């Protein structure tokens, strides 16, 4: 059952002295999610009315809901200027992580959620860490931003640096652990649940019981660990990214 976990198909290249490892399943799924998002964006952009006062067409309603949600929920508490400049990157991050998480429920063999790969989540966490510095330097200036590491007293410098490292690592590990844990739970729990339910309900259901119970268990596990946890974790990841950037920029 566990042979596949953590030991996926990996391509290795040697570029000079270093070895580069690529996981084609992760890479392909992440690129697929990005392509879907790009085409969705292009298709939705065509629906934008020329006149900004005109009522929006029906297919833009989910997009308006999303932008409104990110602006008022995720970015609440930031000032107006920062919110305007953070909205695109935070919404993109949310859509990408959400798409990656939800891709785990697609019944395509060999396809795994890219967020099950530590490289993807740590890469996104490092991107957010870089953005905290960019926004901190842009709003406060380089010297004031770097002086923030000496607060409240200069002796705290190592603590602040360790805090940065721990925050970024836990930001990446949280998404990775949640999605991988959900995937392992789905793999482990589905045979057990099917067997238990078959023993309980098998004599009652006169019709062939295995397909009904199998479909039900699959729906429940993928709905709970795939959709529910996927949406919650994507929200948590973007919320924390917004909080980190906001804390550095204000």
């Amino acid at each position: 059952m566990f042979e596949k976990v953590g030991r996926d198909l990996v391509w290795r290249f040697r570029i000079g002295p270093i070895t580069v490892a690529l996981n084609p399943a992760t890479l392909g799924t992440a690129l697929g999610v990005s392509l879907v998002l790009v085409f969705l964006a292009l298709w939705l952009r065509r629906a934008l009315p020329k006149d900004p006062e005109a009522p929006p067409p029906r297919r833009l309603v989910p997009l308006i809901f999303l932008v409104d949600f990110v602006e008022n929920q995720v970015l609440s508490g930031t000032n107006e200027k920062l919110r305007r400049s953070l909205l695109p990157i935070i919404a993109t991050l949310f859509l990408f992580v959400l798409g990656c998480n939800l891709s785990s429920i697609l019944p395509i063999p060999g396809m795994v959620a890219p967020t099950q790969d530590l490289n993807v989540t740590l890469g996104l966490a490092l991107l957010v860490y870089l953005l905290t510095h960019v926004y901190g330097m842009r709003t406060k200036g380089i010297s004031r931003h770097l002086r923030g590491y000496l607060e409240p007293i200069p002796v705290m410098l190592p603590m602040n640096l360790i805090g940065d490292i721990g925050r970024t690592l836990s930001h990446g590990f949280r998404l990775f652990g949640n999605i991988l844990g959900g995937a392992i739970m789905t793999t482990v729990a589905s045979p057990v649940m099917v067997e238990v339910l078959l023993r309980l309900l098998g004599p009652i259901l006169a019709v062939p019981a295995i397909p009904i119970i199998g479909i039900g268990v699959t729906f429940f596990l993928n709905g709970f660990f795939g959709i529910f946890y996927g949406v919650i974790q994507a929200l948590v990841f973007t919320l924390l990214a917004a909080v980190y950037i906001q804390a550095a920029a204000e």
Partner: protein
Amino acid sequence: MGPELVQAFKYLAAGLCMGIGALGPGFGEGRIGAQAIESMARQPEMANTILRTMIIADAIDETVGIYSLIVAIMILFVA
């Protein structure tokens, strides 16, 4: 020690790691949720702010559980 015994202790260690490591975050998240619901019932107009703070606190609390999950995975599959 034979390899079977090592394997058996690995399973035991992974189960104990995850089981004990889930106690703290479970208790903490329960308290966070309870307090957040109490505050929302007292001040419904603050519900959005409280929800946002609750999710952040839950996520930070959950990190400990995630660490024990990762240690359990490493004991089982990596080490």
